[in-house]
């Protein structure tokens, strides 16, 4: 395996452990917004979609990129907005 690939794998493994640390103590109350919020982050694949749709590299690749941009945008925009909408419902007793 190439050195670059090893480096990427190294980053992957560290990020997974970081993810475990970040999420493991979240109270049950917030599981749904946490899930839809992290789901929106997985729309990060949009960056790859943009590169594919914007490159002049033949029709098929651009079409695939275009479709990827549509799907990833749904994921990102919808995910963040719906999470925000849910979190607006959460209020403490004192603040009316």
């Amino acid at each position, binding site marked *: 395996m190439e050195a670059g690939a090893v480096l990427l794998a190294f980053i992957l493994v560290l*990020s997974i452990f970081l993810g475990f640390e970040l999420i493991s103590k979240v109270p049950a109350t917030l599981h749904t917004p946490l899930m839809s919020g992290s789901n929106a982050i997985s729309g990060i694949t949009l960056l790859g979609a943009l590169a594919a749709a*914007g490159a002049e590299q033949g029709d098929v690749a651009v079409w695939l990129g275009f479709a990827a941009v549509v799907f990833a945008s749904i994921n990102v925009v919808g995910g963040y907005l719906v999470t925000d909408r849910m979190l607006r419902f959460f209020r403490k007793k004192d603040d009316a």
Partner: protein
Amino acid sequence: MSAVVINLVYIGAAVCFILGLKMLGRTESAKRGNLLSAAGMAAAVIVTLFSQEILTFEWIAGGVAIGSIIGAVAARRVQMTAMPEMVALFNGSGGAASLLVGWAAVQGSVVDGHATLSLFALATVFLSILIGGLTTTGSLIAYGKLSGRMDSAAVQFPGQAFLNVALVVTALVSGFIFVHDPHVFGVPFWLMLGTALALGVTTVIPIGGADMPVVIALLNSYSGLAASAAGFAIDNLLLIVAGALVGASGLILTDIMCRAMNRSLGNVLFSGFGSASGGTAIEGEARPVGAEDAYLMLEAATSVVFVPGYGMAVAQAQHVVRELAEVLEKNGAEVKFAVHPVAGRMPGHMNVLLAEANLPYDQLIDMEDANQMLPRTDIAVVIGANDVVNPAAREDEASPIYGMPIINVDHARTVIVLKRSLGAGFSGVQNRLFFAENTRMLLGDAKASVSALLGEFKD
């Protein structure tokens, strides 16, 4: 813009995601956390547009516009009860996008019908197509089951395990051939794509409706891993990091859900729970109670714990229940809501439904706190919950739900159960709670029953 600047902004975006996720873990900071994460995403998208790889913008502009409008409208319109299927659809979109990004990466490198990517890059393309494809169709099936467009029961047929193994082997073999001889439109490529999509279907159809919290969490994890795989394919570090964070968080939620049902992930994925029934037969008689008597009991109580289940949401009773809680508090009682981790159709779903009904989150307590409090509680009111309050999980070793952590409502002085009829729960298990000495059954539609109680208080 130079690649260095772009990568520096990517680091900033990764920090926003990490801090955003951390802030999403506390109710006070959750909203800001989500905004921070969205800001990181916006920054990453904007600098990507300035990269030298991008030469034309019309397809990008069109795609972003279409996707954003669909996403925004869906996010605005969706009912909170339908949140699980909405999240399933968003998951599926993310999976489809990662699949397409992987595919476009090979397609873009083609010279004379052959992809010119490195062996390693091709292997990661294979992974992004496999995980992305499985996430896409798996999420669609989950959507179908959750929204009631499909029968939500576990679908099982002879040879199911064999079919799954055959699909996995086909995917791996065709992937191996593709990686070593990358024809984009050759048979191995189509086989690899087809089996990935088929696997999503065959792995989700055998899972029953009440196990959906686990499936949604697992698919969430897959959509992150698919993004990571796509990141490897196009050499983008931010995709790898962000995808891995999501993959890990999805796995943790999957694990929490499995523990709350006292089942292993393998058992959830392959056993088709809900088809079994059993347990020791129950002797005794249920004691029905009318709204008037239930009112007299609640009126005299100084501490009340509500235990809502998905049945409450189905009856759309959350608003009247919150009103009843307010009336009881005015009457001097201490009122809490105990929420079981798997109440609802996705992790934490019940909490969102109660928050939407304007119930302050400091009135929500989790299972452990509830179980400490219940022995000192005058009345526990069970609304539309069944298996999660069944004492058989504690006492009856023959019961299929034995060992599942439950809310011990039977430890309260008196239990009032609001229920449509005396039927069994999702697991098909009769509930001995309904026949206990200290249990009173208030039969009928949950919303109508609670409204009747409210009426008694107002008179």
